[in-house]
């Protein structure tokens, strides 16, 4: 990379980067939450058999995923081994990777939903919507945990802030657990209706439930990496 020279000696400026990794992590997370919010609203409409504009939504999510990928690449490319960070760089990168996986799944999910409009049986509609809401809440909780990193860094990792982040992480686990339970109910519900539904519908409904749930799984993974990142 060739930078324009200003012709002065200032080793101090060589010590710093223009963008800090944490602010970029938060920037990436904003993209994740933007994508998940769009998908969340859309998927509930979808569950209610409103397929209008869903193709546009899928395109939008895909676009956001692409933007997030650029940020991710930027962070990865600017973490040389000479960079000193207050947390383990490896763990930081794993957290980023998992955070990115959330959007990857969101993209796949929206594309799959767009490819075949599967009607959700009336009996299961409520369960499906509740499940999606819990997954969204998991991501939201993860977002809070990631944002609290800013306070952690600001205070030089004091106990109080660490406890707070841990609490947020705990919330993530909580919602993820609830989402898992809900998915169990959803899946059970689908099998109960297997006689009424076409095999293709069963296959697709189970796949939708699984893929939605996977978003929450990755949010939980982010929280886990965050937890080990801030450990003493």
């Amino acid at each position, binding site marked *: 990379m060739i930078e324009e020279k200003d012709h*002065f*000696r200032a080793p*101090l*400026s*060589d010590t*710093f980067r223009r963008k800090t990794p944490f602010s970029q992590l938060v920037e990436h997370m904003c993209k994740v939450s933007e994508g998940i919010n769009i998908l969340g609203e859309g998927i509930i409409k979808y569950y209610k058999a409103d397929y209008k504009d869903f193709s546009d939504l899928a395109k939008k999510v895909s676009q956001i995923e692409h933007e997030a990928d650029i940020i991710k690449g930027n962070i990865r490319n600017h973490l040389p081994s*000479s960079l*000193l960070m207050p947390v383990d760089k490896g763990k930081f990168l794993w957290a980023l990777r998992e955070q990115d996986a959330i959007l990857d799944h969101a993209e796949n999910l929206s594309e799959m939903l767009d490819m075949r409009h599967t009607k959700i049986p009336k009996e299961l509609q409520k369960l499906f919507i509740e499940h999606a809401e819990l997954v969204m809440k998991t991501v939201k909780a993860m977002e809070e945990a990631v944002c609290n990193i800013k306070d952690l*860094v600001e205070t030089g990792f*004091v106990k109080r802030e660490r406890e707070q982040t841990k609490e947020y992480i705990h919330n993530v686990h909580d919602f993820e657990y609830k989402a898992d339970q809900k998915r169990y109910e959803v899946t059970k519900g689908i099998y109960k209706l297997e006689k009424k539904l076409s095999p293709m519908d069963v296959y697709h409904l189970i796949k939708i439930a699984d893929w939605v749930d996977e978003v929450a799984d990755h949010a939980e993974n982010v929280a886990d990496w965050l937890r080990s990142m801030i450990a003493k």
Partner: protein
Amino acid sequence: MRLRWRHLVDYFIWIIIAIASAIAFYMAWSIGANDVANSMATAVGAKAITFKQAVIIAGILNFLGAVLIGPHVAETIKGKIVNTETIEPNILLIGFIASLLAAAIWVTLSTWKEMPISTTHSIIGALMGFGIVAGGFSSVNWGKIGSVAASWVLSPIFGCILAFIVFKIIVKLIFSKEEPVKSARIIGPAIIGVTAFIITSSLLLKTSLSETYTISDFNGIIVAIITSIIVGFIGIFLLRKIKAKKEEDYFTVENIFRKLQIVTSCYVAFSQGANDVANAIGPVAAIVPLAETGMMSTSTPIPTTLLALGGIGIAFGCLTWGKRVMKTVGSRITSLTNTRGFSVDFGAATTVLVASKLGLPISTSHTVVGAVIGVGLARGLEAIDLSVIKRIIISWIFTLPIAAGTCIIIFYILRMIVG
């Protein structure tokens, strides 16, 4: 030969001194434009002061530091690197000018190439080169060079440790408390009190000031303690009205330190003036007595006018080129918030001031980098690029031989011209 030389001296020595002073002024300008801007940028980057204020603070306090504490380091450069007794005065004259010129060339070249070299290292290297050719290896005071070189390694480490400690104090006594803002209102001024103690004692212990007013060391310490207590209480008094807006109001804590950082940036400027002025005027100071008495004398005190010339040169450098440097560096280091900047300033300035009192010429900008790394090691910064250490070490390795070599070449050329 000898007679002819004396003759020349009568006519031309003042011209030579004027030329030397001009080169010295250029060196001072370069220090002001690069090194001062580089260290003051911590306060500008943390938005504690605007860059205009930084230029004014740097100008005035560098000047004061240069005039009041400067002679300690200038003595080292003037007479302790090369054994001046063993070398003829005319050779000395050429030698000091050659070393000034060599250092100035290397500094200019590396500034152009943006290498993180130090003016201090350049001038010491140049003096070393001149000593070797003028009087052989034995005329260079290797012991002194060894201790100076050791101080180059130690000063960034010392700055690193101090900044680490100050930042840890801020974390332990402010951020981890129930009410961070309330603690900051007390701890901040207390550290400023310590700063006041260090500055006052450096002014009163073994300086021209204490000799003029016959202040004993003991009295000096007492005065320094009283000053520090007064300054501390003034700080607490001024900050008493600041209240936390919410429980975890780190923003207000930073705001308190933004005010305190005005003091530490003055501290940085003052210390820097004390240490760096010698790089510019040390060699000139050595040849002034030559002109006046025809003899080299290590005992003649350095004229205040020379120190003032150096101080003005530094201030001028800040005002002209330094403004731009400060803006650029300041905009790059915005992640250095006020509490961090405060720690860096305190660590670096204290190291530089102590070194100045010990007569050790060190690199202020390398010390500032050391202090930044200290805060980073205390988990205070999101990311620090440690490759700068490699660049600094490379500049250490190259500066001495290159400055020495250039000086040797210039020395021979000058001697050919003069006769």
